[in-house]
């Protein structure tokens, strides 16, 4: 039996000719990531190992993004721990206020990941880099600590689901709609322990931003990683961001996929995931009149320039509905700057939205847009669990930037097709 993309990358990093699904391996890593929440725990565990250096100070990245600029004293203490550790260990890729961004938008932008890499991060959405043809997966702080020490992590080699894409997306439909549609089909444990491998002729119609969004939410289907076949667009992105020379792995013709999902992109519609699971996906035929109090456009899922452009196109020259609070959060400093230069921030502010410095903030109910009891938000984030954005009795509806922007204008969950008709 042939190998999947993921299996080939894992074999290469385990120094093996081939690996099989179910096998336990110790793989060497190209990058180890942590943030301001998970790193302090990893640093405490790392200290127990009695090492005075990390395995490679160029292969550890630490990003202060969840609660920065610090929301309170405890958050400040956590960042201080990270700052001190990175100074002591001479970590090259430490990103603090001023040059930080949300980690999963930041690392590709800084050229820290290339095709064929094996990456772990103490953050579940580390699977985002699969868009670049890398194996990347979220782990916990102990894994991060050990990886910082020895440059390796243990994995059970995953089996895989192949997602075969055909067709092309219609206007105002994006990667977010695709992944919500897929999770709606297969459920939040539909790809549990497995890889989701995306490819097919439909791939060429997806932008890099679409692919990042889709790979980002592979974890929301329970997947270990999501990974895309590498094409010219990927190579252009990697080279354009100064990353290492890509190593391209294609699946074998007889790769052992235990399930194949066919997605015709031309049939994808604007899709919204209702509370309290990302699998509660609905299209507008089944949505009805759902009044909202808040809109959040941002996060590692949809805080890229293309996302802000999609939202601005809909909001330009229009005003947000009375009683709706709209919070726009560019994912990185560079996105923020480019959005400013393109005049997008002006569009948002004139339409009645606020624009924040990059932060995870409201995405995980941290700060900057917490919901009160009974309030509803349409957000471009990735999770709508109970209490995710505030009060346990508040509700989060997941949607694309275009749908979030359309909803901001009407005060109810609204399809971009309705507003732009």
């Amino acid at each position, binding site marked *: 039996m042939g190998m999947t993309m993921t299996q080939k990358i894992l074999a290469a990093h385990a120094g093996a000719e081939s690996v099989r699904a179910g096998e336990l391996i*110790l793989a060497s890593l190209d990058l180890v990531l942590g943030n301001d929440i998970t790193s302090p725990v990893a640093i405490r565990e790392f200290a127990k*190992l009695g090492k005075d250096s990390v395995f490679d100070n160029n292969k550890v990245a630490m990003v202060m993004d969840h609660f920065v600029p610090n*929301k309170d004293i405890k958050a400040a203490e956590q960042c201080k721990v990270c700052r001190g550790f990175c100074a002591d260990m001479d970590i090259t890729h430490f990103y603090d206020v001023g040059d930080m961004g949300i980690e999963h938008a930041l690392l590709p932008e800084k050229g820290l990941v290339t095709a064929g890499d094996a990456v772990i991060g103490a953050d579940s959405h580390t699977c985002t880099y699969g868009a670049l043809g890398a194996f990347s997966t979220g782990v916990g*702080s102990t894994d991060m600590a050990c990886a910082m020490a020895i440059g390796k992590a243990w994995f059970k080699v995953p089996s895989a689901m192949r997602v075969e894409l055909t067709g092309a997306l219609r206007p105002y439909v994006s990667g977010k709609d695709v992944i919500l549609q897929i999770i709606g089909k297969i459920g939040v*444990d539909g790809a549990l*322990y497995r890889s989701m491998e995306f490819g097919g002729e439909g791939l060429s119609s997806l932008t890099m931003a679409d692919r990042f969004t889709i790979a980002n939410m592979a974890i929301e289907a*329970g997947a270990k990683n999501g990974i895309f076949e590498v094409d010219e667009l990927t190579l252009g992105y990697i080279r354009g961001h100064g990353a290492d020379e890509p190593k391209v792995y294609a699946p074998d013709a007889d790769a052992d996929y235990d399930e194949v999902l066919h997605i015709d992109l031309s049939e994808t519609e604007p899709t919204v995931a209702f509370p309290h699971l990302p699998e509660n996906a609905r299209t507008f035929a089944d949505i009805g009149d759902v009044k909202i109090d808040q809109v959040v456009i941002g996060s590692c899922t949809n805080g890229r320039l293309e996302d802000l452009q999609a939202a601005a196109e809909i909001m330009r020259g229009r005003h947000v509905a009375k009683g709706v609070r709209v919070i726009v959060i560019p994912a990185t400093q560079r996105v923020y700057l480019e959005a400013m230069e393109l005049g997008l921030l002006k569009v948002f502010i004139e339409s009645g939205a606020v624009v924040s410095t990059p932060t995870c903030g409201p995405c995980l109910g941290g700060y900057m847009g917490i919901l009160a009891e009974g309030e509803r938000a349409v957000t471009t984030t990735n*999770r709508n669990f109970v209490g995710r954005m505030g009060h346990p009795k508040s509700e989060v509806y997941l949607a694309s930037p275009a749908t979030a922007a359309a909803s901001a204008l009407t005060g109810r969950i609204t399809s971009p097709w309705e507003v732009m008709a």
Partner: protein
Amino acid sequence: MKYSGNVIKYGDNVDTDVIIPARYLNTSEPSELAAHCMEDLDKTFTARVKQGDIITAGLNFGCGSSREHAPIAIKASGVSLVIAKSFARIFYRNAINIGLAIVECPEAAEEIREGDIVEADLDNGIIRDLTAGKVYNTAPFPEFVQKIIGNGGLIASIANGAVK
């Protein structure tokens, strides 16, 4: 390893946001995390959980974020073992890495009732519901995982050279 305790039962898709809400992630102190464990799902949990108690749950337990704070909060609450129909993968590896015993056993997770007294012997893959008088068999941990658990977690395994 043997575990025994009173069962606290939950359903499917218990996510890390209800195990330990993000608003408490500005600390990583086990006892502080334990004080808010399960708060958004079950307000009575922290008051009634006793040392050694066993959680049973449905599918995809621990789905959501990679926060190790979740298994840490459960372990620091006194819970000795989680039996579920299935676990989310990051939670699964985190639990192993920090030394919280977890086992997948769909039958046991389905049938064992809230409040039952349960004994588990994971070396031999046996779960006994003493209240209902039923016995369930599970698969033993793979050797590599046994090595990690046997050495007291991943950190200890690396510190003593068992994993290089």
